[in-house]
C-alpha cells in the first residue's frame, strides 16, 4: 500500500510537470538543421580535400624526384584510399536519409537497426584511419631505406606519432564497436511480439 502511494506521487509529479511554452516552428527548425548539416558536411569534405591536396603537394615536392617504387606505389595507394574514404563518407550520409514511415517501427526494431548501423560505422575504422596509418608506415619505411632527402629525417618523430595516433584511434573505435555488439546481443535475447 505504501509502495502504491509513492508510485502515485511519482506519477502525479511526472504528469504535472511544467509544460513547454515555446511554440513549434518547423520551418525555422528545418532551415536551421539543414544549414547546420550542410555546413558540417561541407567543412568535412573541404577538410578531406585540403588534406589530400596537402599530402599530394608534399609528395610531389619532396618524394617524386626519388623514383623509388615503394614511394610511388605507396603514395598512389594513400591517395586512392583517401578518395575511397571521401566517397564512403558521402555514401553513408546519403544512405542515412530515412523514409517518412521508417520511424513508426517498434522501439525494439528501430533501436536494433540504430545499433547495427552504429556498430558497422565503428567497425569501418580502418577506412577512416587507414590512409593516415599507411602514410605513416610508408614514410617510416622510406626513411629507414634512406631513399628520401636528409631533411625529412627530422620528421621521423612526427610520422611515428601519426602512426601511433591512427593505431590508437582504430583500437578505440573497435572497443566501442564491441560494446555496441554486446548491447545488440542483449537485445537479440529479448522476446518480441513478432516472434
Amino acid at each position, binding site marked *: 500500500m505504501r509502495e502504491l502511494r*509513492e508510485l502515485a506521487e511519482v506519477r502525479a*509529479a511526472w504528469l*504535472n*510537470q511544467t509544460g513547454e511554452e515555446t511554440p513549434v516552428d518547423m520551418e525555422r527548425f528545418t532551415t536551421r538543421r539543414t544549414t547546420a548539416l550542410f555546413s558540417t558536411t561541407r567543412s568535412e569534405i573541404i577538410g578531406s580535400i585540403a588534406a589530400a591536396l596537402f599530402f599530394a603537394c608534399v609528395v610531389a615536392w619532396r618524394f617524386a624526384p626519388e623514383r623509388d617504387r615503394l614511394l610511388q606505389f605507396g603514395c598512389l595507394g594513400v591517395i586512392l584510399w583517401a578518395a575511397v574514404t571521401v566517397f564512403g563518407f558521402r555514401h553513408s550520409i546519403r544512405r542515412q536519409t530515412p523514409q517518412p514511415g521508417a*520511424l513508426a*517501427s517498434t*522501439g525494439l526494431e528501430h*533501436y536494433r537497426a540504430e545499433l547495427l548501423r552504429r556498430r558497422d560505422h565503428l567497425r569501418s575504422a580502418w577506412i577512416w584511419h587507414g590512409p593516415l596509418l599507411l602514410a605513416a608506415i610508408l614514410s617510416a619505411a622510406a626513411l629507414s631505406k634512406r631513399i628520401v632527402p636528409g631533411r625529412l629525417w627530422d620528421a621521423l618523430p612526427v610520422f611515428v606519432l601519426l602512426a601511433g595516433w591512427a593505431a590508437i584511434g582504430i583500437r578505440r573505435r573497435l572497443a566501442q564497436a564491441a560494446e555496441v555488439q554486446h548491447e545488440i546481443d542483449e537485445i537479440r535475447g529479448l522476446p518480441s511480439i513478432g516472434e
Partner: protein
Amino acid sequence: MGRGAKGSGPPEQNELYTTAVAEYGRMLDRLAAGYEADPDKRRDLRQEIHLQLWRSFAAFDGRCSPKTWTLRVAHNTAASYVLRERRVNAKLVSFEEIERTLQNVAQPRDVDRGTALREIQEVILQLRPLDRQIIISYIEGMDAASIAEITGLTPANIAMKIHRIKKILAHRMREEQSHA
C-alpha cells in the same frame, strides 16, 4: 498546424498531425523531458520530434492506431538522439543494472512532488532508450499491452520490467527521504 507549427504537406497528413498534437502534445513534451535534461537541447529535440512526426504521417498506413504511431515515432526519434549524444555522454544502464545496486533503506516519511519529479528524471535519464520507453509509458499510465505495442516486446516481458520499475522507484523515494 498545431501550436505554431507550419507545414505544406497533403491535407490528410496535416490533419493527422494536428489531431495528434492536440491530443498528445503535452505527452510529447514530457517524453522529450525524459530524453534530455538540458532545456535548450530539449527544445531542439522537441522540434525534431514534431518534424519527424509530421513527416511520418505522409506514410501513415493504419498498421497501428494514431496514438501508437505518434508515440513510436516520438520515442524512436528520441532514441536516435540519445545514441548520437551518447558518443560524448556517460554510459547508459538497464533496469537490471540499477536493481543490482539497490540496498535496504528504512521506511520513509511522505514524499513531496518536487523530490519525486527529480528522482524519476534522474532514473530515466540514466537508462538505455528501450528501457526509457517502458518507464515513460508506464508513468504516463499506459498498460502492459499498449507499451508492448510501442516497444515490440511481449506484454509478459513488459510486466516483468514494470515490476522492476516499481521496485526501483519505491527504493529511490525511500532513499531520498531517509537522507532528508
